[in-house]
């Protein structure tokens, strides 16, 4: 089996939507879910049968053409993304009965394009191809955030589009400079030639790459626009932005950093950028009352934490980073999907929603997810945070350690505020219960959080190999260049 199906089939689905639309009202919904389920099964099958990295050549062999690389770390992301998108789509099958999007077919196309481009970003080994997927992911996300066509949604879409367009200009500039000075677009060849460049040009390229990707990975100070977008968009689409799109950009950014710029000065800069980003996001989150905005700030904080983890450039901290990323994706998916149902039911997005809500099931899973984000033991978030703090302490970066602990304490303040609201003794309306399918989806995700928390050793081998592959530049180069 080949990794190209992850990109080709969603594109084919998108192009062929008018045909699926002929199968009645539910034709597109069910075929989209079927496609995502089969992609998820395909990724599982690839994972089980994979004994070494698979390189998928498109048209001509790598140094000249484009190739997709499926190694231990990219299969992790492929499995995660297909799983999360499948869960989201299943959840939407019930959500659409009450509050469907208009022109639903287009909505399903966008979700599948988002999946294809996130996987393409992770798999691609050619920098211009990464730019193309960067744009597909971007343009699908712009439309998704403006989809409801309310003034808020359109404002979010416009802001997203303008920042995205600026990001892509700087990315193209960086790619142009790379091609002019190195004569290649292949990641492995660039990483071999990059150190020999003039330091001025290196500075310029890394600055442009940092601006281009920094606007997309939501790092301070380039994240001023993010919370508006989360607030303006639907909670349902926020789940995808937070759990899938940002993670794909984050992986590509650090993949490029490891390949091109593994210098201690640069990564130390990123390290403190991440810590400051987390601290500021958590402080600002304290005084937010809109739930989407509040959890957007929490996402920014977690991105800062992931920046810290990935910038340490050690296998241990990258392992920690992958655990944090997994836990955060699962938890944010649970939270935003539950919020989508709650907003739809109670017609308000304020934090006082939790005083009114009467749904023990949703209350419990949201609490579990928030505690996992905080890093309470026996939940998924704990494993990553513990490993990360341990490796920071071993490196002797105590200032950083202090910053992270402070940020986590601030984070706990607003999470416990929400939990307090949930248990407040106020008049609550009639009981609100979800359909079985939605419960099953949320329960699966929550069980994932608990299972990873209780038994991290189940996946520890896999994640440890993934992190060692992610940082191993030499074998990536050999894989990509030795193929012809």
């Amino acid at each position, binding site marked *: 089996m080949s990794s190209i199906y992850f990109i080709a089939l969603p594109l084919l689905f998108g192009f062929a939507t008018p045909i699926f639309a002929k199968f009645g009202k539910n034709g597109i919904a069910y075929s989209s879910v079927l496609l995502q389920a089969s992609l998820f099964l395909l990724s599982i099958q690839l994972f089980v049968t994979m004994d070494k990295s698979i390189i998928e050549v498109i048209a001509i062999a790598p140094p000249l053409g484009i190739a997709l690389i499926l190694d231990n770390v990219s299969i992790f992301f492929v499995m995660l993304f297909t799983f999360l998108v499948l869960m989201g789509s299943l959840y939407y099958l019930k959500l659409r009965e009450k509050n469907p999007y208009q022109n639903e077919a287009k909505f399903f196309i966008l979700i599948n394009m988002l999946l294809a481009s996130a996987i393409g970003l992770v798999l691609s080994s050619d920098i211009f191809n990464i730019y193309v997927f960067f*744009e597909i992911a971007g*343009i699908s996300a712009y439309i998704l955030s403006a989809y409801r066509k309310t*003034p808020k949604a359109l*404002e979010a879409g*416009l802001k997203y589009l*303008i920042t995205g367009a600026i990001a892509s200009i700087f990315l193209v500039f960086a*790619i*142009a400079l790379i091609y*002019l000075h190195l004569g290649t677009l292949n990641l492995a060849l660039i990483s071999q030639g990059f150190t020999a460049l003039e330091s001025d040009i290196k500075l310029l390229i890394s600055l442009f790459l940092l601006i281009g990707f920094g606007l997309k990975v939501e790092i301070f100070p380039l994240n001023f626009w993010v919370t508006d977008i989360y607030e303006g968009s639907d909670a349902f689409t926020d789940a995808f932005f937070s759990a899938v799109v940002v993670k794909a950009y984050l992986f590509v950014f650090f993949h490029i950093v490891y390949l091109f710029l593994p210098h201690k000065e640069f990564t130390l800069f990123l390290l403190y950028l991440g810590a400051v980003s987390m601290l500021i996001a958590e402080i600002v989150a304290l005084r937010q009352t809109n739930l989407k905005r509040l959890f957007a700030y929490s996402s920014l904080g977690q991105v800062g934490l992931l920046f810290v983890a990935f910038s340490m450039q050690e296998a241990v901290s990258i392992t920690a980073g992958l655990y944090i990323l997994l836990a955060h994706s699962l938890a944010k998916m649970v939270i935003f999907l539950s919020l989508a149902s709650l907003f739809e039911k109670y017609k308000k997005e304020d934090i006082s929603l939790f005083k009114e809500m009467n749904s023990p099931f949703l209350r419990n899973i949201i609490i579990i997810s928030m505690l996992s984000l905080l890093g309470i033991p026996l939940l998924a978030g704990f494993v990553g945070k513990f490993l990360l703090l341990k490796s920071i302490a071993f490196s002797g970066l105590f200032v950083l350690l202090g910053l992270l602990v402070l940020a986590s304490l601030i984070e706990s303040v607003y999470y416990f505020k929400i939990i307090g609201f949930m248990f407040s003794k106020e008049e609550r309306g009639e009981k609100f219960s979800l359909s079985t399918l939605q419960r099953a989806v949320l329960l699966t995700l929550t069980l994932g959080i608990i299972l990873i928390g209780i038994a991290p050793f189940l996946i520890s081998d896999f994640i440890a190999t993934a992190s060692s592959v992610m940082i191993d530049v030499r074998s990536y180069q050999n894989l990509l260049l030795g193929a012809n």
Partner: protein
Amino acid sequence: MIEGILEYLNQTEVIKTIVILGSMGLFFVGLFGLLSQRHIIKVFISIGIMEIAVFILFIGLSFQKGLTAPMLGDAHTSFVQMNDPIPHAMILTAIVIGMAVLALGISFAIEYYKLTGKNRLDQMNEMKH
């Protein structure tokens, strides 16, 4: 006199310097517009100018004096002494993508204006608390 000037201009270094100066001048116009203008359409125009500046820089610098277009014709029967085709292909892709994004942005702006009557970035305050 004129021949001297032309000969001076025909040097590779001079051509490339002119390309860099011109395209970065254009980039300055776009960046200045982006930072100083608040009207949505003007912001889009500024972004378009910046994009074009990057494209011109890339195409101009990848062009080599004395080489022909990468295409067979009456005088050229084999693929030697030709310019690099990859920048052309890349810019072709980038132009289409840039156009698509800006067209989409304009449609957002039109719809936003219809709903709220606002057309400036600094008037956008649907989410102020």
